[in-house]
């Protein structure tokens, strides 16, 4: 029997392949890496749900998702950029993420679109990304009002990311500020109040010490190494 969802899912890939890289994007920590699910992460497992009601906006869930897919990066808070392929957010497509502050090396990572239909889409990240596990973006009707939602089942991928995440203020801002800001911007696009409801539940307080080795893939460390090597790569390109 074939599932009704077959067209919405990406096909499995052993490792990620980045086909095109925009000129202003840093392509690191994605190509050649495997994706990491929640079972492959190190830290505590969190179920997080962020919601915003688009009160007063006459927009269907389908339209919200259509616009969200088309302008995904535009709704992100300042400080991070996402580079999506021409095909946009579609099953199997890979996006590059660059984040950072001026003067510091660009933190580079990415996402694989694992699922996309007309009212939702989901990402999973490569090894080394701060979190492992699926993140789903969706919209639905709640008694005549469209609600936009971000839901994740994630663990910090390695002990260093876990340490960062449990730091007061910093961890919460990194983990949750991204989606609170995104939903706020999405609400503002339709003239709704940026009143984001957050529900965070720890599903598993234990750490998966067998996955501590993930630190070798840590995208923060590899981004710094990539930045240090940039001058050498420029010289090598000129010699070629």
């Amino acid at each position, binding site marked *: *029997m*074939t*599932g*009704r*969802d*077959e067209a*919405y*899912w*990406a*096909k*499995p*890939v052993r490792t990620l392949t980045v086909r095109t890289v925009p000129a202003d994007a840093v392509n690191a920590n994605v190509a050649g890496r*495997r*994706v*990491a*699910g*929640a*079972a*492959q992460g190190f830290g505590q*497992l969190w*179920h997080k749900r962020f919601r915003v009601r688009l009160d007063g906006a006459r927009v269907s869930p389908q339209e919200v998702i259509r616009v969200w897919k088309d302008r995904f990066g535009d709704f992100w808070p300042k400080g991070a950029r996402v580079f999506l392929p021409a095909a946009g957010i579609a099953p199997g497509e890979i996006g590059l993420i660059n984040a950072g502050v001026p003067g510091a090396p660009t933190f580079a990572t990415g996402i694989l679109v*694992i*699922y996309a*239909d007309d*009212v*939702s889409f*989901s990402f*999973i990240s490569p090894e080394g990304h701060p979190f492992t*596990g*699926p993140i*789903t973006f*969706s919209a*639905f009707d709640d008694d005549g009002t469209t609600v936009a939602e971000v*839901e*994740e*089942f994630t663990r910090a991928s390695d002990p260093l990311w876990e340490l960062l995440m449990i730091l007061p203020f910093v961890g919460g801002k990194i983990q949750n500020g991204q989606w609170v800001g995104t939903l706020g911007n999405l609400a503002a696009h339709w003239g709704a109040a940026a009143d984001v409801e957050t529900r965070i539940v720890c*599903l*598993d307080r234990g750490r998966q010490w067998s996955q501590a080795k993930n630190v070798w893939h840590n995208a923060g460390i590899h981004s710094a190494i990539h930045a240090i090597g940039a001058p050498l790569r420029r010289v090598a390109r000129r010699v070629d």
Partner: protein
Amino acid sequence: MANTTTALGVRRIGDAGLMDIRGDVTAQSEPALAEAFAEASSGGIRAVILNFSALDYMNSGGIGLLVTLLVRANRQKQRLCAYGLNEHYRQIFELTRLDEAIAIFDSEQAAVGAAR
């Protein structure tokens, strides 16, 4: 999101609790799955086996729920197994790397045998 129609049956064979899953598995399936899991995992069983033979639809919200079942099984020191996955759903398990955490079998007999 699609309207969810999840039907669940619970059986016990030897040391295993079986959950027969029919219809859709999405985020809306959470209460039904949680209730069925609680029943299937009770009574000192060694493994919970998910029967996906009649699964018709699963989205990424459903994958999230399977992660929560996995955590509950691990917490109770029980094994979480699955059978009845067609090629498409096997690929989803592979894509999300759930196949590395949930043991997949070709038949009920094989899954129950592994639980002994």
